Each structure stands twice: as C-alpha cells, then as structure tokens.
C-alpha cells in the first residue's frame, strides 16, 4: 500500500470512526442536537438569530400557489426521503430493481383521497361510505393496501431475472396509470379527487394545525422519517437483514443454506410498498387534490435516482439522495433568480424551458449515468455494497 492509499484510508476512517469512538452518551447527545436542528430548519427566526444576512432559501423559493417558502420544499424533501427509504429496502437491501415504485405512493394517496374526500365517489355515487373518514384513520388502511399491492405485484414477478423484473414492474406501473386515467368509475381520471382530508389537531387558539402552512406537515413527516429509520434498522440488524444481504451477494448459495429467498424477497417488496404508501398518505394529507398525474413514470425514476445517487443499501444514502433530488433543483432555481438566469431561452425561434426545476429530469437522468460509471456505490454508500462493487471491478475486465 502506498502512502497515498494509507493517507486516504486514514482520512475516511476519521469521520465515521471518530464518531463511533465517542462514548455512547456523547453520541446520543450529538444525535439529539442534530435532530433538534432539523426541526428548527424551516423557522425564519432560527436564521435571523444566527445572523445570516440572506436566509438560505426563505423567500427565494416561491413554489406552491399558497406562496409557501422553504418549509414547502422541506416537506417535499421529506416525503421523497420516505420514498427513497422504501425503495432502499427493495433495491438497496434485497437488490430488486423495481421501476414502478411510485405506484405504491399513488395507492396510498388514492386510498386516503377516496376515504376522506366528501366528493369521493364512494360517498356520492356508490354509498359505500356515509361521510368522509378522518385522515388519521385512513393512513393504516392506505399502508395496508399499498402492502397488498406490493405482494400482488411481487408474487408473479419476483421469480423473474433482474432485467425482466425491471421491465415488468415498469410496465405494471404504467398500465395502472393508464387504467386509472381512463376508468371513471372510482378514480376519476384526470379530473381527480378534490378536498382531501388533513391530519387532525388544533392549536390552543382553536386554529387547525394542519392547514395552509407547510411547517407542521414538515414536522409530521420528519417525525415519521425518524420512526421509519428506527424500524428499518431493526430489520437490517436482524435475521431478515442478514437474509437480504445473503440473497444480494449470492442468491443460489443463500437458498442452499436454507434461506427462504422468495419469502424474504416478497417481504422486501411489501415493506417497501408500505413505506411508499405511507409517504403517499402523508402527501395526500397536505395536497388537497389527487389525480392520475400522480402516477407518472418520471417520479419513479426520480426516486430511483435518489436512492442510487445517495447510495443504495444505506439509510444515510437514501436520505441524502432524497434530499438532493428535491432540494438541489429548487435551490438552483432560486440562485438563478438572484443572478438572473432566464426561465426560457429562444434559439432559432424555438422556446426552450431552461429553468432548473424543469430540467430536473434531464439533470438527474444524466447524473444517473455518470454516477453508475464513476461511483456506482453512490455518494454515501453502505460499506458492504461499495466493497461488493469494488470486488467486481477488480475481476478481470472482459477482453474488447
């Protein structure tokens, strides 16, 4: 080993291992401080107290029509991080390429919408329900339905090889979208379902907590994220997580060692779907309006990009990826606004939309390619995954 490699290794060791070396109380304290900081992020007062001349984001992120600010973007980051965490279980842990993951989000969102909206056809046309249900009650139902759809999707397809699984999940999600768009009997296609319910709760002065302001939604999703991380880690550090790693590293050998591979692959799908559905129900709680554009393929790819950019197989990677994929284009756009970057350009009479948020998919599609070539383990990788990929690179590269 050259001194270069030794130096690099030592540097890498420092950050992660230095943290691990701290005594447990210190580690917990550090985490608590970090989490408190996260909760404080969208509050303007926080920044003003710190003396930032120009608050990062606030005021530079005109976004939803309610004229919201950074909290709105953070909320979006939040439910995308949840999605990334869910896909991470499917792709990062079990190694299954599901290209229609966003479909589970849609199942969750639609379930909530159908059950909580007073204009839902379940109430107005079919009389299944007498009156809309409260949002909180519909969330477990949404999760359960999403899990069920995950199992239904996985059951026939998980026996297929990786590339076939990919294209089948892709087709599945797209077909669901087309069916939803054309079927009017419940889902109402493009016209969608308005007046979706909100999470409960009132402030002391009687005002609803979950109304127009994004900040309470952000706090809610942040809390959910922390809980979900905790649960996922329980899974990862158990016999289940071990089985997933074994399946990923050598599925045939795993099966011969008694691992029930099909069962655990199906569980991975189910867990991922449940988290996706949870994310969808949280989003629906804020969105007010759900229609078939929710299902679009591009969002599945965005979640995929989030997981892969961050680092498949690592919780930190999923969080980082989910954050980057949403926050970066928004931030670029606001920076662009400050410096006068145009939203449209005209070349030879053709208008081209060059706003960073519109170019988001181009950027992340290209980044996917770049990352796969130069750093397939992602930005914040799971150590094991990174090692697995390095092993392959060291194998004799094929003759050209």
């Amino acid at each position, binding site marked *: 080993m050259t001194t270069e490699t030794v130096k690099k290794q030592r540097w890498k060791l420092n950050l992660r291992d230095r943290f691990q070396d701290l005594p447990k109380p210190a580690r917990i304290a550090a985490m608590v401080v970090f989490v408190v900081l996260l909760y404080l992020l969208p509050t303007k007062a926080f920044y003003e107290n710190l003396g930032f001349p120009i608050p990062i984001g606030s005021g530079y992120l005109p976004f939803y029509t309610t004229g919201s600010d950074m909290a709105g973007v953070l909320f979006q980051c939040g439910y995308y991080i949840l999605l990334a965490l869910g896909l991470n279980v499917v792709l990062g842990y079990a190694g299954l390429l599901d290209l229609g993951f966003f479909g589970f989000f849609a199942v969750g969102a639609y379930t909530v919408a159908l059950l909580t909206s007073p204009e839902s056809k379940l109430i107005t046309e079919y009389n299944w329900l007498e009156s809309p249900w409260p949002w909180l009650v519909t969330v477990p139902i949404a999760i359960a339905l999403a899990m069920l759809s995950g199992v239904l999707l996985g059951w026939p397809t998980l026996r297929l090889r990786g590339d076939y699984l990919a294209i089948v999940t892709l087709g*599945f999600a797209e077909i669901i979208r087309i069916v939803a768009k054309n079927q009017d009997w419940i889902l109402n296609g493009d016209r969608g379902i308005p007046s979706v319910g909100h999470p409960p709760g009132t402030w002391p002065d009687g005002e609803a907590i979950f109304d127009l302001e994004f900040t309470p939604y952000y706090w809610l999703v942040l809390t959910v994220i922390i809980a979900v991380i905790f649960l996922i880690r329980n899974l990862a550090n158990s016999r289940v997580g071990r089985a997933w790693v074994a399946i990923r590293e050598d599925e045939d050998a795993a099966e011969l060692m008694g691992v029930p591979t099909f069962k655990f692959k199906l569980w991975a799908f189910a867990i991922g779907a449940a988290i996706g559905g949870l994310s969808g129900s949280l989003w629906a709680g804020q969105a007010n309006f759900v229609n078939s554009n929710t299902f679009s393929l591009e969002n599945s790819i965005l979640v995929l990009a989030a997981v892969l950019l961050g680092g498949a197989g690592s919780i930190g990677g999923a969080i980082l990826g989910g954050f980057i994929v949403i926050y970066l284009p928004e931030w670029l756009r606001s920076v662009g606004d400050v410096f006068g970057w145009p939203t449209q350009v005209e070349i030879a009479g053709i208008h081209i939309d060059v706003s960073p948020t519109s*170019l988001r998919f181009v950027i992340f599609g290209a980044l*996917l390619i770049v990352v796969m070539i130069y750093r397939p383990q992602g930005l914040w990788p799971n150590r094991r995954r990174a090692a697995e990929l390095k092993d392959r690179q060291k194998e004799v590269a094929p003759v050209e």
Partner: protein
Amino acid sequence: MNFDDLIQGFPDLTTTGLAQGSIYALVALGYTLVYGVLRLINFAHSEVFMFGTFAALWTWGLMGYDSNSTRPDLGTALLLILVSLVVASLFSGGVAMVVEAVAYRPLRKRNAPPLVFLISAIGASFVLAELMGAFTERRQQGIPGLLPGEPLFSAGGWTVYPLQLMTFVVALAVMFGLDWFVSKTRFGRGIRAVAQDADTAALMGVNKGRVIALVFLLGGLLAGVAAVFYSMKQGNTRFNVGFLIGLKAFSAAVLGGIGNLRGALLGGLLLGLVESYGAALFGSNWTNVIAFVVLLVLLMFRPTGLLGESLGRARA
C-alpha cells in the same frame, strides 16, 4: 366481448394489425439484437425511435411540408418518404451509437454488474426523452399527410390503404436485408460470434467493440425506418411516444424469443394482430394493456418465447 365487430372487420383488422405489427417488429429487432449480443435491455432504444420520428418531421419541414400543407402528388410523396427514410434511419442510428459510447461502453470497461447497466440505460432513456421534451415544450407535433388518403382497393368490406401496404412491404424488405446481412456477411458472422461467446470471438480476432457499435447502429437504422412509418400513420409525435412503443416492441421481442431475429419479426406481427383483434373484442381502451399482459404471461410461463433460440445460433 364484441365478436361481431371482430368477425365483420376481420380482413381490415388483419391488415391494420400487420401494418402496426411491422412497426413493432422493426423496433423489436433493435432490442433483440442488443440483447443477443450484450444480454442487456436497451431502455434507450425507445428514445432512439422517438428521435427518428422527429428527424422525419424536421426533414419534411425543411422540404416544405408540415401538418398544414396539402398532400403532394404521388411522385413527390415517394421522394419525401425516401429522403426521410434515409435521414431518420441515419439519425436514429447515430443516436444509438452515441448512447452506446456514452452510457454502456464505460461500464463494460469497468466490468459493471447487470443492474448497473440497466440503471444507466434508464438514465439514458430519460435524458433523451426529457431533452426532446425541453426542446419541444412537451407539445405534440403534427405530421404532414403524404401518401394519398384514399384506399388502394376496397373489395367486399376489405379496405387496404397505401400506407399499410407500404409499411408492410418496406418492413419485410428491410428485415430480409438484415437477415441476409447477419447470415451471409463477414460482419454478420462477427455479430453471431460475439453473441455466442464474446471472449472466444475476441481471441479469434473479432473486434468486440466494433461489433457492438455495429449492432447498435443496425438497431437504430431499423428504428428510424419504423419511426417514419409510425409518424405517417399516427399523424403526430411527441417527446414521450417512445415509452409505449418501446414497451410493446420489447414484448414482441420476448414473444418471438429474445435474441432471435426471426422471432422479433414473428413476435411483432403477432402482437400487432393480437392488439388489432383485441381492440375489436374488448374496445380500444384496452389495447395497451394487452401487450403488457402478453409480456407478463410470457415471462412467467415461457420466457424463451415462441422460437426460443438466440442470436448466436441463427441459422443461415
């Protein structure tokens, strides 16, 4: 289920199905060629096709014809079609080769696992589609009508349109050309060798990199041809038309036997027919679902498809 429509319209449905199937077959060949040689589903192929449609549109635009023009006379129409075939196939072929060089070759050099290839493929597909979307403001673009709209002949309820006949004949001709190329020429032998055993082929002096580039080029050329006929039939195109056509064409390739050239032809035509009859039976809303159900059922019960063989063992 509407059996009357099916029986009454059978000849018409068959012609429509064959014409549409020819388009699927041409695109399917691209998927099957790349899969046969690289064992990779080239997700970006659908966008290669989509770029072909725009190449045709722009060519006709430059020659003075857009969706508002009156139909030209037959001679001019044929000239326009010929020019666009050349331009679109070269353009698509070029795009395909660029994709290979940028998104796949670096991964081969790094011995990346198949999952990584797939992801890069998806990324490429996305970049291409979204670039075109940004360029065209995601609007649908109208295609000029070129061939005469009157039927070629009409006998006893059976109507055949010039476009349908042309699509079918040109597609068949192109496919026979490809078949000849792969079975009888030196380049074709190289393709078959690499498909069968890449490392040994390399040891025997076959330049694997060049063979792979060639395979992508061929797939692109075929997709370009398909794109021209698709545009004429559909009357419009859009930045995201690639996805659905690609999915169906891939299903057709699997139906015929992935990696099998004749299988792609068979699968494409068959899928076109099944869709056509299915639309009569179940209503046109369900045509897209049909292709997908076919794919799913196939992969579960007979993943080797109808003809089942691979490119390497293509008979001369």
